[in-house]
């Protein structure tokens, strides 16, 4: 039945998974709206990040979607259905929810925590057990841990269990309130990667609140930047937000290093192939000199059947001996196709040759220079198909 439902939902592509229309919230006693007449569409299967300074109503907006906070005005629809049309409890059982503090039940085992919503929904025990094991695998929790208690797990593991618990009843929509705010940066990075991997697998519609622009840029397909009072200043893809801020507020929020942030969006592999000042080791030294001149550089790279051998300085090439005999330098200026442009830039800045070699598991895949990165910035960096949901 759930498969059938899924098919119907995918076919109905025009309706956004979540639609906010004129949604306002004014808390009792407050003079100003916490959220003011917000319109927002979240496409099915997309990750949307709500970001903004404190007091911008991002968490309030999130909590209005599952009615932990009731809107003062406006309508919220999930899959085309007004959320106020059903009892709040029933609505919430169909929406995954992950919070920063995780909020696992400390008196229940990991398995029981994950099984929370299925149990509420009255699933049979065997089905619940299967689902729990399956989810433990999906989020990377050893099944031997299922009988443990939350305080026996690390912060990162707890947050994985939190995600598993939110996914237990396979809800189409997942709400995440600063899900990785409480873990250290290394674990946070890992969890973000895992979320993206997970999303490729489960394809949920995810609304994520964060105060970390880097996190939003990294995981979101679209970012809604909110200003104080719940005003959407810009709702765009990460690259568009960084490349073309809609106004002064956005520009200030994304910061002066927004070009640097954009570099984190694209990988070296996204750049078109370009060999750079490189030649086969068996080639004639004169041809090598021609390549050096063509690239206006002082170094020539030697390649032997897709293996990069090293750099030879110009005067050695000009000396006229066989290239294979020349003194080579093999600097560490190497990047993988999966490296971001940002890390490529870092490598280039510290390299003697101002060129980074793209090394794909030992295979030479061209070079990256400052000019090529600058060229990339001029274009659209949301490029890779997997990002466009």
């Amino acid at each position: 039945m759930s498969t059938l439902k899924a098919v119907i939902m995918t076919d109905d592509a025009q309706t956004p998974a979540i639609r906010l229309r004129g949604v306002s919230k004014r808390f009792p006693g407050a003079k100003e709206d916490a959220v003011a007449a917000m319109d927002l569409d979240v496409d099915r299967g997309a990750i949307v990040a709500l970001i903004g300074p404190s007091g911008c109503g991002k968490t309030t907006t999130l909590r209005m979607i599952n009615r932990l906070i009731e809107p003062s005005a406006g309508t919220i629809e999930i899959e085309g259905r007004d959320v106020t049309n059903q009892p709040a409890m029933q609505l919430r059982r169909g929406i995954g929810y992950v919070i920063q503090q995780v909020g696992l039940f400390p008196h229940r085992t990991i398995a029981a925590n994950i099984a929370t919503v299925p149990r509420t929904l009255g699933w049979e025990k065997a089905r619940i057990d299967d689902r729990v094991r399956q989810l433990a695998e999906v989020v990377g929790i050893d099944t031997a841990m299922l009988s443990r208690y939350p305080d026996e797990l690390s912060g990162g593991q707890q947050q994985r269990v939190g995600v598993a618990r939110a996914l237990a009843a396979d809800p189409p929509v997942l709400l995440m309130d600063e899900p990785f705010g409480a873990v250290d940066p290394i674990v946070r990075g890992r969890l973000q990667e895992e979320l993206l991997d997970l999303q490729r697998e489960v394809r949920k519609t995810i609304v994520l609140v964060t105060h970390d622009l880097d996190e939003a840029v990294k995981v979101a397909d679209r970012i809604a930047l909110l200003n104080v009072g719940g005003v959407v200043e810009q709702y765009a893809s990460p690259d568009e937000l960084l490349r073309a801020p809609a106004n002064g507020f956005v520009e200030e929020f994304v910061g002066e290093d927004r070009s640097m942030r954009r570099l984190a969006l694209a990988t070296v592999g996204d750049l078109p192939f370009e060999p750079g000042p490189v030649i086969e080791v068996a080639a004639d030294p004169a041809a090598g000199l021609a390549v050096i001149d063509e690239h206006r550089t002082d170094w020539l790279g030697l390649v032997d059947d897709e293996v990069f051998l090293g750099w030879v300085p110009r005067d050695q090439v000009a000396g006229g001996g066989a290239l294979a005999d020349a003194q080579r330098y093999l600097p560490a200026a190497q990047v993988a196709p999966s490296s971001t442009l940002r890390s490529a830039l870092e490598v280039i800045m510290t390299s003697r040759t101002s060129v980074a070699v793209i090394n794909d598991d030992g295979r030479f895949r061209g070079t990256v220079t400052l000019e090529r990165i600058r060229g990339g910035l001029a274009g659209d960096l949301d490029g890779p198909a997997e990002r466009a949901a």
Partner: protein
Amino acid sequence: MTAILAQRAVPRDTTLWEWFSDPMTWGGSDGILANLGDTVLLCAAVTLFAILVAVPPAAFLAHKGWGEVTSAWVVNIGRALPTFAVAAFLVPVSLRAGYGAEPWPIFIALVLLTIPPMYLSTYVAISQVDKAAVNAARAMGFSERAVLTTVELPLASTVIFTGLRVAAVQVVATEPIRAFLGGDGLGRYVRDGIGQNNATLTIGGTILIAALAGTTGLAFSAIERLVKPYGVRRLRSDRSPRTGDTDEQVGPLEDGEPAGSDAAGVGGLRQR
């Protein structure tokens, strides 16, 4: 006064040992067992009644987050009430109303003594439950009732039980004033001992009262152990696994976890 006259006289030179070992001391309508029964009955009635009166509203109000200031006031006023004076004041009231000198005045005074600590410990226990767990439960579609009964009460139970235990012990320790208000119970030995200048009776009575108070505390701990599921009980002790065999499993599991970096980082830091 009739009660005192009806009692068997205990010679002043009787030692504690002789007194305690005399079967006559224990049996009969005015023996220790009968008085113990009186005391236990009254204390149990007071404790149960106070639990019923104090715990549900405290749990409900704390769950709602209501009445924090009011609660503090009620509790403070309740604490300021002198139990003996209240009971003594109620004796003529009760007599005039036709309910007799016993046991309503002492019952009411003890209930008033007991409600504030029970109420307070329950209120505090519930309001101190980890809000993240409560919010998560609500966000997953728990009814408010389920939030209270399946999350808040279990997590608060240790503190609540402690409050109940302390209050119950206090009831047992205070109940003997009943003997000075025309009743019996274990307090009569203290009263008679003082009245007859008989140290054996006084000390014997206090030993009995202290023993009952201690037993009450132990009984509550035993009940607590029986009532609380393992998941709740284990939270009370230190956070590391309890026995050696589980201890050994922690290391390999955390290390063998696929995302090695956080097992080594966060996990390693948190572990001990």
